[in-house]
């Protein structure tokens, strides 16, 4: 746990004793970090540990109150993101912002396209420069293809290519894998390794610890804005890293209780939505946590949407507790005891500029009512009750949810649905993008709900989560259920085989 002062190449970019406060909040306190060429360095820490502030300091968005940024050993001051970019520092964000109607090549060379006579854009040169970048990254993407319709993974690769076109020597990747599937992550890592081998310094941020171990050589850990450690990952375990991040031993990440399942609560029969998913049948019994695994695009979320009534189905039927649900009617699904914690909490799970109280209250518009009017006392106590039960960290219940951290936002979504006392709870990527401490809390909550007799269907792209929490694993591939694996037989290999369609299971 010492500062890196190994021999070897000099750091291309370093932070020395950086502090940065926002009002009374000390976001960074005396943080140091060294990035070496040809090395992937991970940055670990819970939400609110100061990772974003550190990245923004490196990227020239924030200026430190104290401390130095050293470029090739010499102190520099970035007056804005442009300075950092000119110094060869590029940041790849979780959600790229490309112009959807422009081609990949145009996006990369936006505003600085090669020109021909009379200032006309030289399309051919732009195309070829882009093709060369793609080749250097070892990926196949047609430079003429419009950005619209590219997967997030491909969009990130375009952003990386753009960074390369600025001769970036330092690549900062802020949770690039959060929205990617397993195979997309593998491809992204291939690109990262290529860059590393070409001598780039990479700072990699991820909530998925196994990814940190897979791609990085060193890790710097932050906690509450303070530097905790910078050390090689060799010989460290995930538990070691978690301990540094949370400052204490974490309770088990997957606290699954043993439950003997009761009667069927959710029954899906031959459900089909043309061109999306076909002939999907399964049951979830009371007390069970059923994992629904598969690659992104396999149709898992789409099945959940149809079951809840957001989208219509073309054939089949859905029963909750023996009651047939109406096609395309979330309100009747809710009335039957179904709850859906959707995949995108910012767009679907929450009304971002409404208060915590009103967001939780939104599922109670039929229950916290007296004589046709809102019962404000009941609405508030219902919201407070559930916010406290789930230990949401907030200042005031009337604060808007966009003031909360991602983990706390997810707790509000859960609170909103648990307040309806659901018989069946569908959770879609329940722990995506939230820190490891909150993740364990969400898992404990799901386990306890199941033990209390709720039927839980858990969609997740996080395989350890599926394997750790599910009593049974259903696997989808290209719109069909391809496997049902009991907990005892569920291994990463078995699930991945079914998810990629390589199985006869």
């Amino acid at each position, binding site marked *: 746990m010492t500062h890196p002062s190994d021999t070897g190449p000099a750091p291309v970019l370093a932070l020395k004793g950086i502090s940065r406060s926002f009002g009374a909040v000390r976001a960074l306190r005396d943080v140091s970090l060294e990035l070496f060429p040809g090395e992937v360095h991970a940055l670990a820490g819970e939400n609110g540990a100061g990772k974003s502030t550190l990245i923004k300091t490196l990227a020239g968005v924030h200026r430190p109150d104290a401390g130095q940024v050293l470029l090739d050993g010499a102190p520099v001051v970035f007056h804005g993101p442009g300075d950092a970019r000119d110094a060869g520092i590029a940041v790849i964000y979780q959600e790229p912002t490309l112009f959807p109607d422009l081609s990949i090549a145009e996006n990369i060379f936006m505003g600085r396209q090669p020109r021909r006579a009379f200032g006309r854009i030289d399309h051919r040169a732009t195309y070829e420069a882009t093709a060369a970048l793609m080749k250097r990254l070892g990926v196949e993407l047609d430079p003429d293809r419009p950005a619209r319709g590219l997967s997030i993974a491909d969009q990130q690769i375009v952003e990386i290519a753009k960074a390369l076109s600025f001769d970036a020597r330092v690549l900062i990747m802020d949770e690039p894998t959060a929205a990617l599937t397993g195979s997309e992550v593998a491809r992204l890592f291939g690109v990262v390794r290529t860059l590393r081998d070409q001598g780039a310094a990479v700072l990699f941020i991820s909530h998925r610890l196994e990814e940190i171990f897979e791609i990085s050589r060193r890790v710097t850990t932050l906690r509450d804005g303070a530097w905790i450690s910078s050390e090689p990952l060799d010989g460290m375990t995930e538990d070691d890293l978690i301990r540094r991040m949370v400052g204490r031993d974490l309770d088990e990440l997957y606290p699954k209780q043993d439950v003997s399942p009761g009667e069927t609560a959710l029954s899906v029969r031959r459900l089909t939505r043309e061109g999306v998913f076909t002939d999907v049948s399964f049951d979830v019994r009371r007390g069970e946590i059923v994992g629904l695994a598969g690659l992104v695009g396999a149709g898992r979320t789409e099945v959940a949407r149809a079951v809840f009534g957001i989208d219509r189905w073309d054939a089949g039927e859905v029963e909750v507790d023996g009651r047939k649900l109406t096609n395309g009617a979330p*309100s009747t699904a809710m009335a039957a005891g179904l709850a859906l914690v959707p995949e995108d909490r910012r767009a679907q799970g929450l*009304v971002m500029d409404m208060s915590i109280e009103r967001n939780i209250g*939104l599922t109670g518009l039929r229950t916290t009512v007296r004589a046709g009017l*809102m019962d404000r006392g009941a609405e508030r106590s219902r919201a407070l009750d559930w916010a406290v039960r789930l230990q949401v960290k907030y200042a*005031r219940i009337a604060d808007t949810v966009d003031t909360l951290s991602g983990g706390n936002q997810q707790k509000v979504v859960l609170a909103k649905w648990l307040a309806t006392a659901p018989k069946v709870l569908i959770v879609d990527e329940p722990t995506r993008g939230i820190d490891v401490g909150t993740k364990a809390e969400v898992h404990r909550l799901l386990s306890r709900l199941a033990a209390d007799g709720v039927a839980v269907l858990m969609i997740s792209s996080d395989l350890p989560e599926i394997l750790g929490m599910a009593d049974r694993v259903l696997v989808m591939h290209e719109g069909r259920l391809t496997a049902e694996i009991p907990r005892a037989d569920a291994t990463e290999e078995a699930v991945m085989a079914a998810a990629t369609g390589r199985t006869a299971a």
Partner: protein
Amino acid sequence: MADISLSRAIRWDTVVGALLVVVLLFSFGFVDGFGNALNLSFLIGNTLPIALIALPMTLLVVSGEIDLSVASTAGLSGAVMGALWNQGMTIEAIIPICLLLGVVCGLINGLLVTRLGLPSLAVTIGTLAAYRGIAQIVLGSDAVTDFPSRYLEFASGRIGDTSIPDAFLPFLALLAIAVVALHATPFGRSLFAIGASEEAARFAGVRVKRQKLLLFTLTGLMASLTGIFWALHYASARYDNATGLELSVVAAVLLGGIDFDGGKGTLGGAIAGVFLLGALQNVMSLQDVSAQSQIVVTGVLLVLSVLGPRVARQIAVARAGRRAAGSPPVSRTPAPTP
């Protein structure tokens, strides 16, 4: 810093309310002829049509939609009323028919928006022209003035020797209903949610399309009620009654702090906006400002009232961003599409 939007909305309401008081006090003190009973009854009477339509319009804008065809629906109702009266029907039979017509007009808007997914701005600009055109076909250039005196007196009369029009009391009842509906019922709650995030509302089980259809229908109904009132109040049913009224309604509602993007505002603010606009128009008339110039003022007010809260919010966000840790306000702005 938390809850910028709410505190901002409350402050905007208060600002408009205070502004209304200031304008009224100023006018009583310094504008000749403002304070006499006859002028005040003109003020209220002329503002009532705006206020009546502002009730459903507020709910509609809160839910993220708009209806620009209201004035044409009002005109069409008046025209049909005149035409049927000329045919010799009784007024008691005509009024329900006109109200039903308003319902149909609103329903058409609502179905086009909710079933075909068209933007309400475009749909209702279209029906603005269409409904007005039908009004002209129905009544031509006639003006029908000989409605029964009992009705004319109600629509233009005053309570005793006060300056309060008879029609003001029914309006207050409708206002009370609208306030309760928007601010105290599950229905109102769902409108704010729809306006702030339609998708999140749908995922919370809110029946978005049904609520919107209901709102458009109610708006049509209130517009036709206003058209009937207009024809009786001015004792003249013409095809071009209430032309341009939608401008005043939308300007007043936005002036009252209803966010054009939906999800924010209070009915109290909207009504304060209506009477502020009404008072300004009245004062301008007393000062012999031409009708054309008044329209210019209304238009400028509309732009300012869209601009005002937005600038105020950006200042608040910038201030909060400087104070708080984490994301600077720039991260809120999405990348522009070329």
